[in-house]
């Protein structure tokens, strides 16, 4: 049996006893199954994105259990004790059969309760004139306090060899007034109707922007959306459910800083300066805790770079990282709980509606995009051409920052550019960014190891030797990353030298003014 279609049908239709089916077929309804479910997913809905549902179920027949359903699998196991609504589930408490399916999809992110509802499910068999089942229907109704009443989700499952019959049945159901085809698990359709299918703050900053809209309005909207992402990740960052909350918050700040930086001549200078200052403050506040998170996460890898003989002696350095992590997160919590951040987030909300932000009313978003992309590519290219094997590390870091600006600008303007060419440019840019990132990580870590060694109180000589080895290894990694740069730069440079970049702009959906 495989799921063929999922439809959302208005609840007025009599689907449980007499759903409409094509002539010559009849329906036999099974018993209704009632349960209460709490769905769990990562903040970015990684499970539902793969059409996999994870839920804690209370059911009269089967009792309490944790169920994974989707991708052709249904697994039920004893649930983790006491999931706190809104809290994270301990990954270690998951039954192995559940963990095996869920953890690879969750990619290290915490599993949080997403929604709760009463669920009434009924299976129906559609039979032909021989009373052979030719397709199966499952009707699902969700009820939750505060949720609008509404629809029945009908899943049409085809049986092998009877796909045509299932298609016909789905077609008949789709013809019910008000019915629509939906994708994914039934709960996704329900969440969609509630407006909570996507993670809060997950709207791409440039979604739906058009070339002819005023640049000031578009840039304001971009910044506003990015600050909404910051706000959406606040609770998870404070609770430290997983390290991705802080990462996503920080990336949103960086993107917003880029938008503000490039908005010279678009936004009022006063607004622009204020945003730049506040975003820098917030970005700076996130740097130490993010660095510490990365050190802790990459600790097994760092430790493995020390020879086996000295590895046990590197332990004091790990303790130092743990202590600094605590301090860094305590300071971050202060910043995130401050009035200063509240005001910044208010500004973000105002920006989405503001119409007095513009400086030059005549500038269109298309013109802004064309200019900003050209300038950012030029800056990356210029720094790349200047880079020599003996250039100081600062030159590489500068190149890395400019590449980020280009990447973010490309993200903001995705809606305006042809998808395939856009993806090609992003791929070439990403290859360069990966090498730059590897170089940056190694050199920042190397500096941190030295700093850490100095901070240790009376470190044993073996610990210092171990840290020396680690620094040596990180230096080798940095050199290796640097060696990759010429090739990666050449991949990006052809966009400029061969005129590909201009083709990209000229082929833009809204033909960007060049």
């Amino acid at each position, binding site marked *: *049996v495989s799921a063929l279609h999922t439809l959302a049908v208005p609840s007025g239709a009599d689907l449980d006893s007499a759903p409409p089916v094509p002539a010559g077929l009849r329906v036999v309804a099974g018993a209704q199954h009632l349960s209460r479910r709490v769905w769990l997913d990562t903040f970015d809905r990684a499970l539902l994105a793969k059409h996999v549902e994870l839920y804690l179920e209370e059911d009269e027949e089967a009792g309490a259990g944790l169920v994974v359903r989707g991708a052709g699998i249904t697994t039920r196991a004893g649930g983790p004790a006491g999931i706190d609504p809104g809290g994270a589930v301990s990954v270690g408490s998951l039954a192995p059969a559940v963990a095996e399916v869920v953890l690879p999809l969750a990619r290290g992110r915490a599993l949080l309760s997403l929604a709760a509802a009463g669920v009434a499910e009924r299976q129906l*068999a559609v039979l032909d004139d*021989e*009373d*052979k*089942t030719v397709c199966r229907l499952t009707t699902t109704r969700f009820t939750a306090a505060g949720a609008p009443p509404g629809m029945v989700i009908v899943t049409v499952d085809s*049986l*092998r*060899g*009877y796909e045509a019959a299932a298609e016909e049945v789905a077609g008949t159901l789709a013809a019910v007034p008000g019915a629509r085809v939906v994708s994914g698990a039934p709960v996704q359709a329900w969440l969609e109707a509630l407006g909570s299918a996507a993670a809060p703050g997950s709207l791409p900053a440039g979604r739906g922007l058009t070339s002819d809209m005023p640049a000031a309005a578009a840039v304001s909207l971009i910044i506003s959306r990015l600050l909404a992402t910051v706000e959406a990740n606040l609770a998870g960052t404070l609770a430290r459910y997983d390290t991705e909350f802080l990462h996503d918050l920080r990336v949103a700040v960086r993107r917003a800083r880029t938008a503000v930086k490039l908005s010279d001549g678009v936004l009022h200078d006063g607004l622009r300066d204020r945003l730049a200052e506040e975003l820098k403050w917030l970005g700076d506040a996130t740097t130490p805790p993010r660095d510490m998170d990365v050190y802790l996460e990459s600790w097994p890898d760092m430790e493995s770079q020390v020879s086996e003989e000295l590895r046990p002696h590197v332990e004091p350095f790990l303790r130092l990282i743990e202590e600094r992590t605590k301090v860094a997160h305590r300071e971050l919590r202060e910043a995130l709980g401050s009035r200063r951040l509240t005001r910044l987030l208010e500004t973000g909300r105002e920006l989405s509606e503001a119409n007095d932000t513009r400086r030059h009313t005549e500038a269109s978003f298309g013109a802004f995009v064309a200019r900003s992309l050209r300038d950012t590519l030029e800056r990356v290219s210029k720094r790349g051409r200047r880079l020599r094997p003996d250039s100081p590390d600062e030159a590489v870091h500068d190149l890395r920052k400019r590449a980020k600006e280009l990447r973010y600008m490309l993200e903001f303007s995705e809606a305006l550019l042809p998808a395939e060419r856009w993806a090609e440019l992003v791929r070439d840019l990403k290859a360069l960014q990966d090498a730059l990132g590897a170089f940056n990580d190694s050199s920042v870590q190397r500096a941190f190891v030295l700093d850490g060694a100095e901070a240790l109180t009376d470190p044993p000589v073996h610990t210092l030797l171990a840290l020396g080895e680690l620094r040596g290894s990180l230096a080798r990694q940095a050199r290796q990353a640097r060696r990759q740069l010429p090739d990666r730069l050449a991949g990006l440079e052809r966009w400029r030298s061969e005129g590909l970049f201009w083709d990209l702009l000229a082929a833009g959906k809204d033909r960007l003014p060049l």
Partner: protein
Amino acid sequence: VKVVAAYSIKGGVGKTTAAVNLAYLAALQGYRTLLWDLDPQGAATYLFRVKPKVKGGAEALVRRRHPLADAVKETDFPGLDLVPADPSNRSLDLLLDATKQPERRLRQRLQSLEDEYEVVVLDCAPSISLLSENVVRAADVVVVPLIPAPLSLRTLDQLRSFLDETGGRRPAVVAYFSMADRRRRSHREVLEAAPSGQGDISAVTVPAASQVEQMGGRRAPLAVFAPRSEAAAAFRLLWAEVAAAAGLSATGPGPDHDE
């Protein structure tokens, strides 16, 4: 994949009853099972309520250019699929004869489904023919129903000779008494005299029971509508023997069978 063929030189001995019930029990135990109805009469197809029609007919079942998977129909029972009969299965012999390596064609056709199924049950038309040779060459176990009548052991001997003559890999044989009616003296005498439980003759006897006859009306395997009947119990025992002869675990596939 393990191939189990329900086969008899003689007709009307309970061959389809065996194929349907054994396939159902294999699926019930967790084996991904396919029942291939090769008999043009299509009784197994009828019992699973599937229409006796294969797109392209028997030719599609024999020719390589038609994937066998396209003919598969999912039954109403989890884990059990069916390749239905088609009236043109009457010409299977002729069609097989026209292929290269005609005596191995069935095995070759089944190879394409090896990843999908763990057990394939063949329900064959009664005869000794090119199709029979194909069935024998494809099978790991040949299940032979015998009516408890004086001539039935002779039929089994004929089959043994046929297997010897066919050469190559010899499938295991599990013969059993079918449609046994102990009220009939002739049946009683044969059952008492026969070497049941020895060699390739199973100790299992499937009785001539009304429930078995009801399969035609209920259009379902015995275990579905008469799970506590003597006949259903006999088929469970028979399946255990067949599974053992095929080298399958008596407790069903292990937890790693999907890997």
